[in-house]
């Protein structure tokens, strides 16, 4: 990699939209589809994944000159596993209720291909500030995807948004718990796994539609 000035705007744009973990790279779909039956669950897993991504990118970037290429994947996996174990234990200690809900999916962050992917393709070749920025924005992009999917499924499935947010963020965030459709009978399908796949498909289609509109506008401006 060239040692030219790091383009943080590019990193931010890639992480949040252009190269979004979920909507562009289609990685990490397993935890995404499994936990996003409510926006709160999505946010919880998203925050945990963000923490792991940040720490993993930092660690990999720090050690990038020591790790020999032959063993790099094994080392990355070990690093990520250690970090995930820490996050898992911390959540169990301080966010016990949410930890019970998200259960299996916290340890499974180890196998989240997005984290290994960022370590391999970005952090292991970049200086520390760029790697941390990449971890931050990739993690934020993942949170956006999780909350969007979880929110859409929660609204359609049970008519609420951010139910039980206080459990995740503390009592002061109880104002986030909205009931958008009162006396809603619920559309069970959306809370069940098929709903995750269906809503994911619609969100992907929506993103492509927006991208296409943007490209059209860009060409029109260029032509004008």
């Amino acid at each position, binding site marked *: 990699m060239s040692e030219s000035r790091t383009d943080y705007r590019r990193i931010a744009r890639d992480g949040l939209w252009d190269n979004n973990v979920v909507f562009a790279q289609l990685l990490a779909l397993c935890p995404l589809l499994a936990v996003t039956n409510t926006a709160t669950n999505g946010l919880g897993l998203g925050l945990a994944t963000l923490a792991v991504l940040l720490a993993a990118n930092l660690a990999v970037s720090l050690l990038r000159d020591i790790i020999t290429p032959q063993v790099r994947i094994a080392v990355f996996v070990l690093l990520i596993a250690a970090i995930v174990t820490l996050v898992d234990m911390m959540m169990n200690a301080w966010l016990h209720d949410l930890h019970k809900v998200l259960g299996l999916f916290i340890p499974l962050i180890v196998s989240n291909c997005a984290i290994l992917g960022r370590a391999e393709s970005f952090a292991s070749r970049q200086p520390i500030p760029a790697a941390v920025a990449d971890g931050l924005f990739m993690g934020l992009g993942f949170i956006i995807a999780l909350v969007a999917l979880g929110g859409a499924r929660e609204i359609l499935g049970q008519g609420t948004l951010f139910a039980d947010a206080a459990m995740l963020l503390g009592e002061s965030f109880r104002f986030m718990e909205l009931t958008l459709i009162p006396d809603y009978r619920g*559309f*069970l*399908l959306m809370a*069940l796994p*098929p709903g995750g796949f*269906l809503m994911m*498909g619609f969100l992907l289609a929506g993103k492509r539609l927006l991208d296409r509109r943007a490209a059209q506008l860009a060409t029109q401006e260029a032509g004008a």
Partner: protein
Amino acid sequence: MNNAGPLASPHTRQSSSVSAIMLQVWLALLPASLFGVWLYGWPALNLLLITTAAALAAEALGQRLAGRPIMPSLKDGSALLTGWILAMTLPPWAPWWVAVIGALFAIIIGKQVFGGLGQNLFNPAMLARVALLIAFPLELTTWVAPQPLFSANAPGFIDSLHITFVGVAPLVGGVDAISGATVLDGIKTELARGAELGVVLPDYYRAGDAMLGQMGGSLGETSALLLLLGGLYLIWRGHITWQIPAALLGTVALLATGFHLYDPLRFAHAGVHLLSGGLMLAAFFIATDPVGSPASRRGQLIFAAGIGALVYIIRTWGGFPEGVAFAVLLMNAATPLIDHYVRPRVYGRDPHGKPLDYQRGRFARRLKKQQGGE
């Protein structure tokens, strides 16, 4: 003599456009549907109309979003037929929003998302039926006992609007609307309670009623006789092949008879299975959908036998009393695999793909015989 135009005869004169076929299938469905409307009264008619209208609207919306022409696809009748078949598989007094959500799901997610007519992997009507069953288990398992039009207890037209749009059954003729279990529901519940089949079966199943359709069930699936007639008409007109209905019904009959002989107290006989639930409708009108079924005749036999076996397994050991929709979807998913292994013979080639040697074999003998005869 003017030699322009096609010369070699014979020419087929049958109109085989999509809309003509759809019209024929719709005609074949009509007797059973009308019987359903008569049997369950005005709410059933509301359901048919709402579902079909919603399906057409969804088709127009899908075509518009995809940037494809709208009118040709509405006119081909496929959306109308999908909506109609979906309505026939719903409980006859289902509320309007069940019909609308089902039709939207069938057309948009079941068909348009895949690219429109002919592109879908799964039967749209069955997909919607399963989605509704999972999303609204209560509405989808609330059956009414037959209350034929103009009979004493039947709801009038105004009451029917109330049933369809408000959802609470009003007092009809002084009594609450009578609910009734389907044959398969009843058998499943009684067996779960530990009752003996031979004792309780007559409470739920009378062969004559089941044949005609005088029982609780989905709007258009109860009358085995009328569905059979419609199906035979379609086979006669050549719109469907006999392989799928025969293999489907045959497999169910075979399995049911085998298990019934093994233990008559636990397993219902073949008649119960053939004449109840959605089996007849599926065998002639749903499994035969050319889009989701294999191309070759042998493949169709495998496909239909698979559906039959799955229906029997789900009905007998599964969590749901009826498994036709699940079975059709599962075998729809297997269709690409079947088509991969069981391919139709290419015209002019033997089943192994080698060109036919016209100087040897059956073809040559026939040719020789023909020439010898001249």
